[in-house]
């Protein structure tokens, strides 16, 4: 009898916490000025501006605020851009200490279920993970796995709602409805700044269509003169008033990562 596998929940590429805003405009709404068409063009522009980063790595710190107590999770995230499919990513956990050395490998796909593997250092065992669980909490935080997913095509239907100023920045306000039936959300409302097409705020609605969480993305930094990355993201859960902050630091681009750094073998030796 031996189900002693520690089960760290799966986790997905965490570098781009922007809304997935790509969608195919539906046939009947394909006129250039329909809210759906405007929303689609915003999404396409947002995606286009984030193409070509090739590979990167970053350090991630999560701070969980649960009433008086604070709890931290630290990890490193390596990512590889894949042409015509979703990105590959590897996450290596550094804290809490009891999960140190645990590593997670994910191949996101635009038109299929993601492939996911978890490495359990105590057993030196790689386990394949079923990937449908998107709505569950990541490491006990207010982030769900799907909130940490990379920005992929065709995962949402959406609609431009209005233009609005947020903290002095002109924004598009766009509604996106997940196409994945396993998503924990009925819709997301995103504020995207008109100058750089960066998501500044996202409201998440549950299946009863009530406001569940709000994500605020701030302290954007420009990398390689092209890629904007938020240094700080704060997720507030309106139901339990708990908050989780994510800090992404030490971004490195063009690190020379390639396909061979994203295999079961490289997962086993991830340190």
């Amino acid at each position: 009898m031996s189900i002693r596998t520690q089960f760290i929940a799966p986790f997905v590429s965490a570098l781009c916490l922007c809304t997935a805003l790509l969608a195919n405009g539906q046939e009947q709404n394909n006129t250039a000025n329909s809210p759906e068409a405007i929303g689609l063009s915003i999404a396409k522009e947002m995606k286009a501006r984030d193409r070509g980063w090739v590979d990167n790595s970053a350090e991630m710190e999560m701070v969980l605020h649960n009433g008086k107590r604070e709890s931290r999770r630290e990890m490193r995230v390596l990512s590889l851009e894949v042409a015509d499919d979703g990105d590959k990513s590897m996450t290596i956990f550094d804290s809490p200490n009891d999960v140190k050395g645990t590593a997670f490998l994910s191949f996101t796909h635009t038109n299929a279920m993601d492939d996911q593997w978890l490495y359990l250092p105590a057993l030196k065992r790689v386990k394949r993970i079923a990937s449908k669980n998107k709505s569950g909490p990541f490491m006990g935080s207010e982030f769900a796995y799907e909130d940490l997913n990379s920005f992929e095509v065709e995962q949402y239907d959406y609609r431009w709602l209005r233009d609005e100023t947020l903290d002095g920045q002109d924004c598009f306000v766009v509604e996106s409805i997940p196409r994945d039936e396993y998503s924990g959300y009925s819709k997301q409302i995103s504020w995207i700044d008109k100058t750089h097409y960066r998501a500044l705020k996202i409201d998440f609605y549950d299946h009863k269509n009530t406001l569940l969480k709000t994500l605020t993305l701030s302290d954007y930094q420009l990398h390689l003169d092209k890629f904007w990355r938020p240094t700080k993201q704060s997720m507030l859960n309106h139901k339990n008033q708990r908050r989780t902050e994510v800090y992404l630091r030490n971004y490195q681009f063009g690190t020379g990562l390639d396909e061979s750094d994203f295999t079961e073998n490289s997962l086993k030796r991830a340190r």
Partner: protein
Amino acid sequence: MKKLSLPLLRLSVAAIALNPLFVHSELLGYIGLQGRVYPTSAAEAEQGSETVSAVIAPEWFTQWNDGDDSFNIKAFYRYDSLDSERSHGDLREFYWQHVGPSWELSIGINRVFWGVTESQHLVDIINQTDFVESADGEDKLGQPMIHFASIQSWGVIDAFILPHFRPREFAGQDGRLRSIPATLNNQERYQSDKEDEHIDYALRWSHYLGDWNLGLSWFQGTSREPLYEVIINGSDFALAPYYPLIEQSGIDAQYISGDWLWKLEAIHRRGLGHSLAEDMNASTAGFEYTFTGINTRFWDLGVLLEYSYDSRSKAQAGAFQNDIFSGGRLSLNDIASTEILFGISQDLDDSDSRSAVIEASTRLGDTMRLITELYHFRSKQTADPLYSIRRDSYVELGLEYYF
């Protein structure tokens, strides 16, 4: 977390890659304290009823040459107040590894896991089980090896030369969870004249194709699983392990479909030369299914069902000759990463032969885990391998500190 990295306390992998001379070293591990009580009186008078034990498991590694070279050490020591044979140490890992463009070479003591099932690990043959450490057989002794891996688009080939054999360690006279009569340590016999210096070989091909994982493996050498001989020890009977030479071929497969994982492991083992081991087949097959977000607190429940078959007679086959294992894993997805594992293994030929386990753990603060474990064994027939531990059901409470 104690870090010994030079010259900076924390750098990303990328920074290491940019600096070829960068040496990155870390010390980590855990210490633990466990108390265990066996509520039922023992089968033999000298066996005790409670034990306190302490464990330390430090780990150190250093990487250099862009991370392509590494040296890794993982040590283990347990002190047990009841059973001197369970007080034991082991070098789990002590190896150098070099990573090439599409290959890896490791030399030294290491651990290697093969397989996909949960209730038992048939194809997993490289390492000897640390038999005194835990009842679930998941802990393994370090194995000296030369391991070469070739990583190709058509799969991974692993080749092993295993120059030294590690015999099992068995609980002592005072200990629980042992055979009756007790199995003696340091009395083992081997089929090979070279005894524990017989050189074993193993090969494995494994591949991942979409929703499929497939592995084919082959091993030739000293069986990790001994036969037992009755010997006279002073005025008493005792058992002594006998390690035959075998050849074992194995297959493991896994298919993933949504929240379903379908699993299969099967082996064929045959004795080599004048082996006392009978030829045998065994397999384990089953599935794992995960119910996600089962309540408003987003708990997950994974359920598991596995059937095991073994062609050998019940006494030789161990606990899995015609048995169903069902179990589950409840993850609370909370800040403390609380989880509860449970399972029951039932013999389909003998309704009175079963074992069950519940294991729960939760994090205290940022660096400790509290773990409780409950094992139950039931058996009424003397030919049943569980019979000798039928009175050894126990409950254990432990605390582990991670650094």
